[in-house]
């Protein structure tokens, strides 16, 4: 396992050599958070509720969603398509190591950097803004939150790998990824809680993987899902995780037969 840790550590060191880019990236996240925070603060005065959310719950939602995004969505797999196109995947293929674990290790490195920084940023923001934050104390909800975050992280990783595999067939891997990012931002619940959508639309999205990436873990943290609903989400999210993994296996093996190790 040590080899994978060295890969993760290398990614962290690499991130630190591009300090300015990384700081700007973090700054962008803080700005995005502040916009959402003040938007909801303006929409929802202290003692009212909107779509069933009190001010403290919605602000907690915004805070926690930004923190969870750092864990779930920080990734290096976005580079996979380009790595395939440039022929740099050859380096991975020549190594006696598992390709999925190598990419997972890169993600872990990226996630650790982002988590460390976001914790720092949010401590500062928390002290300055002093929001009415809802702390979940029920151990059941906390444990369920951790499990759903883990499932979401793995599911997101597999989806991301699958998107990267487009590189085996096409040089244009950014267009589908761009669309995916927009869908992701919207339908994972990063901008607003999904249950404020009309019921049929919400039901439709509940069948897609998107809500399980962010919205569901957040709702569980806020203690707003019943025991039954939590069980159902575990089931659907795990089914997606296994389904996407199996698809990835098939697509990867097909792609490998087409891989030309270009660039030379």
């Amino acid at each position, binding site marked *: 396992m040590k080899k994978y840790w060295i890969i993760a550590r*290398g990614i962290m060191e*690499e991130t630190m050599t591009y300090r300015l880019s990384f700081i700007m990236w973090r700054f962008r996240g803080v700005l995005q958070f502040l916009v959402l925070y003040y938007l909801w603060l303006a929409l929802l005065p202290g003692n009212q509720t909107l779509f069933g959310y009190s001010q403290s719950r919605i602000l907690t939602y915004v805070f926690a969603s930004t923190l969870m995004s750092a864990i779930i969505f920080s990734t290096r797999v976005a580079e996979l398509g380009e790595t395939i196109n440039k022929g740099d995947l*050859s*380096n991975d*293929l020549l190594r006696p190591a598992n390709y999925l674990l190598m990419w997972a290790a890169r993600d872990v490195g990226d996630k650790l950097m982002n988590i460390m920084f976001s914790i720092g940023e949010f401590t500062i923001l928390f002290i300055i803004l002093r929001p009415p934050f809802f702390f979940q104390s029920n151990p059941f909800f906390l444990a369920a939150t951790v499990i759903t975050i883990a499932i979401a992280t793995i599911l997101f990783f597999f989806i991301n790998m699958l998107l990267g595999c487009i590189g085996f067939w096409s040089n244009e891997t950014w267009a589908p990824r761009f669309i995916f990012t927009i869908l992701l931002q919207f339908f994972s619940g990063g901008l607003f809680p999904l249950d404020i959508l009309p019921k049929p639309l919400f039901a439709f999205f509940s069948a897609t993987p998107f809500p399980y990436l962010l919205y569901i873990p957040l709702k569980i943290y806020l203690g707003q899902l019943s025991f039954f609903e939590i069980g159902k989400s575990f089931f659907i999210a795990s089914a997606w995780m296994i389904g996407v993994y199996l698809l990835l296996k098939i697509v990867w093996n097909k792609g490998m037969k087409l891989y030309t*190790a270009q*660039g030379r």
Partner: protein
Amino acid sequence: MPAITVSHLSKYYKIYQKEPGMLGSLKSLFNRKYQTSKAVDDISFSIEEGELIGFIGPNGAGKTTTLKCLSGLLYPTYGEVSVLGFTPHKRKHAYLKQIALVMGQKNQLWWDLPAMDSFLLNKEIYQIQDKQFKKTLDELSYLLAVKEFLHVQVRKLSLGQRMKCELIAALIHSPKVLFLDEPTIGLDVVMQQNLREFIKEYNQKFNATILLTSHYMEDVKQLCERVIIIDHGKILFDGKLADIVKEYAGHKLLTASFEKKIDKESLRAFGKIEEYEPLRVVLSIPRDKSSDIAAKLLDKFPVEDLNIEEPKIEDIIRDVFQKNKL
């Protein structure tokens, strides 16, 4: 048992063709034409353990594709490949641990970190013991004289320094089979020579099987006894370098210096004039008649000095490729 056996290997690529210009790009959105390119077309050869073989051919001849098939990066379209008893494209870890592929224009080193970090990663990936790692690293860095820049960011190294570090990264697990694709490309003459000496030493010291491609004939001349010449995906020649001369050079080069000026026209009867100055001529003459022609020349002209040589290997190979084009 040979270390490498290749039988009837073919690798075809599908290439997408686009007409030039904006209109061509638009058309290609809806209707793409593909063409099959035979990068490697039915080649067979085998290599014994410890051999150092030169793989030569012009750009696009199929050299790199063959190396990629042998190292397991590509699935062959047809044919069988076996290296150390493994089927390369299955990429079994036990196989990958025994080989290395070095591409002169590609790097495996971490660009933003010192080369040492990449070596340490390979140490873990190839599961090398601490003691063995230290020993190999010491040996390699001594042979390549790189000790002082192992801890410098790779991006700050010169091309030559980087190439040396690439080699160390590729050899740190002491591979038994080594595929070198243009290892000396872009390096200055001194560095090329250093690298050649290193490759030779590695081959002898570890009895490693090495397959090397290069554009520089000098690499091949100095390192390889046996060469495989490939063009348009087919093998044109497989044998000892010295045999190329016998097989392909139907002529020799005769150089004569004269005591007084000799008319160019009067020399034409003796052979094809390659170079001419009034006091000196280089003639290309049929191999089997070389002594007759020399005797006649000595008889007819006031010859001061006469020399018969084999043509240069570079020239012979160039001729082979040109003939193949026709």
